[in-house]
């Protein structure tokens, strides 16, 4: 399976290409997560909703 790095899978992508597409998704999720966390902290500073 991993013997041919240039094999084009049914998605039209090679393994390396698919991994790169996936990395954009992962990075995006991380960035969005961090932003959401920061936004929540800021909201909590002005209008605390816990305690």
């Amino acid at each position, binding site marked *: 399976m991993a013997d041919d790095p240039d094999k084009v899978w049914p*998605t039209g992508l090679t393994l390396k290409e698919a991994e790169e597409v996936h990395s954009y998704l992962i990075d995006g999720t991380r960035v*969005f997560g961090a932003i959401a966390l920061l936004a929540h902290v*800021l909201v909590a*500073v002005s*209008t605390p909703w816990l305690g």
Partner: protein
Amino acid sequence: MAILRDTALRKIQGIAPRFLPFADVASEAVPLSRLLRLSLFQVTVGMALVLLVGTLNRVMIVELSVPASLVSLMIALPLVFAPFRALIGYKSDTHKSALGWRRVPYIWKGTMLQFGGFAIMPFALLVLSGFEQAADAPAWIGQGAAALAFLLVGAGVHMVQTVGLALATDLVEVEDQPKVVGLMYVMLLLGMIGSALVFGWLLQDYSPGKLVRVVQGAAVITIALNLLALWKQEPRDRDRANRVETHPEFRDAWRLFVQGRTAVGLLIVIALGTMGFGMADVLLEPYGGQVLDLSVAATTRLTAVLAAGGLVGFAIASRVLMDGRDPLDVAWWGALMGLPAFALIIAAGPMSSGIMFVIGTGLAGLGAGLFGHGTLTATMRSAPRAQVGLALGAWGAVQATAAGIAVALGGILRDLILGLPGSGGFRPEAPYTPVFALEFALLLTAVAAIFAVRRKQARLSQTANYVSSQDRPGPNAVPSDPMPPDRRPTGGEPHDHRRLTAL
């Protein structure tokens, strides 16, 4: 089971490419509709600029009563990143990707930065202004968060615009570049005008909740429009991905970019002209109001006159450049047009002539349009294909820095003159005339600088005949003598890496 799997695989094969964000192939001619879609990224850039410089500037000072000095500091923060545009452009030129992409990853990252900045910005501003319990929190939380938000948006805007313009340059033939430049400028202007109107209308009766909705709405629109703009634009390129390329370091690439040709001269021209046209941006309205006694509605219409002049300028520039005129000639005419424009604006004060002022403003817009279009087109053409990102990054770095300095300098000069002892006895136009006169002088210098660059070009093109056999980019430094199209194909053509690896 096997049949089922086969049909499933075939189904996937049929569907998949439609849901993947690559262009299928580098087609010979990119249709206008696709370029229009790509130019949507300029709309988001315009929206971000208006939000930062216009809307939030006002909201922070008037509604949130943040000290004006802190506000101008925050708004100036994104300028810090402007010089890095050259580096971003270089990075995208030499990006290593399994997909063979160079531009999309950077536009996507820039979009995320812009989105992130806008997403936290309203909360950061509310904390900064001490909204509700935030008054008890230490001040650095609000200041730090607001600074971070502005920096994120600024970095995102620089990234998206630089790499987006590089992608647009990649996609079209040299002859079609003027059309693309015009389109990009028009979309930037439309984005700015449209979002200014919409933000003004939405924030008519301000409330904190509305601020959150408007700014975060802008964040979502940014991501939506940029995704739409990017989708299936840059072709996937397995050859480029598999090629082992040695790229020069940034410093070497920069040296290659500036050496021997007219790149530095062009950058100086851009700085001079941008400052010359940009200084008046924030002064025209108060000048009209305080010196010529125009009403608020009339001075707002003034901005429309300026923008309309710009649009006419872009249209004329696109037209004559498509006919094969030299972009530097067009820039020269633009700078020249600025001279009578500012002369009229200066004279309008003492003669208290509103008509002269309006005509001068329109001419200034027209000149700025011609100048901006001409210099950007010249930049696109001055670089070999493998250095397009670097060239456009340098253009953007100089342009954004010069524009920022110009606006700040114009305001500072006016305030300095107003603060002079005995300024109460001055005529009302006294604080403005020196600024307009300085613009006049800057544009005069720009005209002379363009003349000098043209002279140098002419000299280089004479020697280019024997240099071109050594693979020097002689002809494309002289756009009146464009490269034969067969040497500059569209889209995912191979790098001109002989030039770069020849270091």
